[in-house]
């Protein structure tokens, strides 16, 4: 068992309903955002509020897979590929647009790690905050169900989902995070990030893949 404490200043979730605040992105840039990226940038901006020097870690299991599948469909039907879809089909598309929209050259990275994308993204964000304690880190996880014919897959969200955390040493609360190998209690059928959200809202939760058991405890 290894564990670490993630200092959480604030967190913002997006469950696919309600008003998105994307006014900070000009319409010409905004029109290219997928529903998943819209959720991601909404929570990213809300978390980064008043923290102009923050760096960013984005994580997603599928990223812009919907666009990739659309491109593959075009290829299969021998149609021309859409340059817009192609340019924004990469995992770090949301991070790139966020940086352009904010005129922010802060470091940003994008992580994918299968069903455990949320957990490893959070670990990356935590390590960055440890490495450079003066600089807050905004961690943004966003996903949508994998599109047909690839998905939906085991452990996918039911709809667009985004969760953002502002990580900084001076936070009042911390998210105690633990991971151990093995999943003797059985594999969780739900999105890994749901478990962390549950811990943030109710105090604690755990989640298991076929390889690891994760738990979160808000302190």
């Amino acid at each position: 068992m290894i564990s670490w404490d993630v200092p959480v200043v604030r967190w913002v979730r997006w469950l696919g309903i309600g008003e998105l605040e994307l006014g900070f992105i000009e319409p010409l840039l905004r029109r290219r955002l997928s529903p998943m990226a819209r959720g991601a940038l909404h929570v990213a901006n809300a978390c980064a509020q008043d923290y102009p020097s923050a760096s960013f870690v984005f994580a997603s299991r599928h990223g812009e897979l919907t666009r990739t599948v659309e491109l593959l469909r075009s290829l299969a039907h021998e149609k021309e590929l859409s340059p817009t879809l192609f340019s924004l089909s990469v995992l770090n598309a949301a991070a790139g647009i966020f940086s352009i929209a904010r005129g922010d050259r802060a470091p940003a990275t994008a992580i994918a790690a299968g069903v455990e994308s949320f957990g490893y993204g959070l670990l990356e964000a935590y390590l960055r905050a440890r490495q450079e304690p003066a600089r807050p880190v905004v961690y943004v996880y966003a996903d949508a169900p994998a599109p047909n014919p690839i998905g939906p897959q085991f452990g996918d969200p039911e709809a667009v989902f985004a969760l953002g955390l502002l990580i900084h040493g001076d936070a009042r609360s911390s998210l105690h995070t633990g991971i151990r190998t093995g999943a003797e209690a059985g594999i969780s059928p739900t999105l890994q990030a749901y478990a962390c959200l549950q811990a943030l809202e109710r105090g604690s939760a755990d989640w298991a893949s076929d390889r690891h058991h994760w738990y979160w405890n808000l302190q």
Partner: protein
Amino acid sequence: MDTLEQEIKILIIEALNLEDMSQEDIGSDVPLFGEGLGLDSIDALELGIALKKKYGIELEAGDSRTREHFRNVLSLAALVRSQGKAA
């Protein structure tokens, strides 16, 4: 009002996903790229594909006249009239 120009405006709005924009917002003589509508190079490529699909127009990437054709809705309408197949 020229119906081909209207048709091209709708094509631009749909192909480039210009949310919150209507035909009335695009003046026929307003530059599409840079100053004016503010479209970028990815839009130019996307628009090229849309014109090919709808009107059968083949544009060469290295052709210096392409820039002229893409100036505004009027020049695109002229291009479609002279080279378009489906219009």
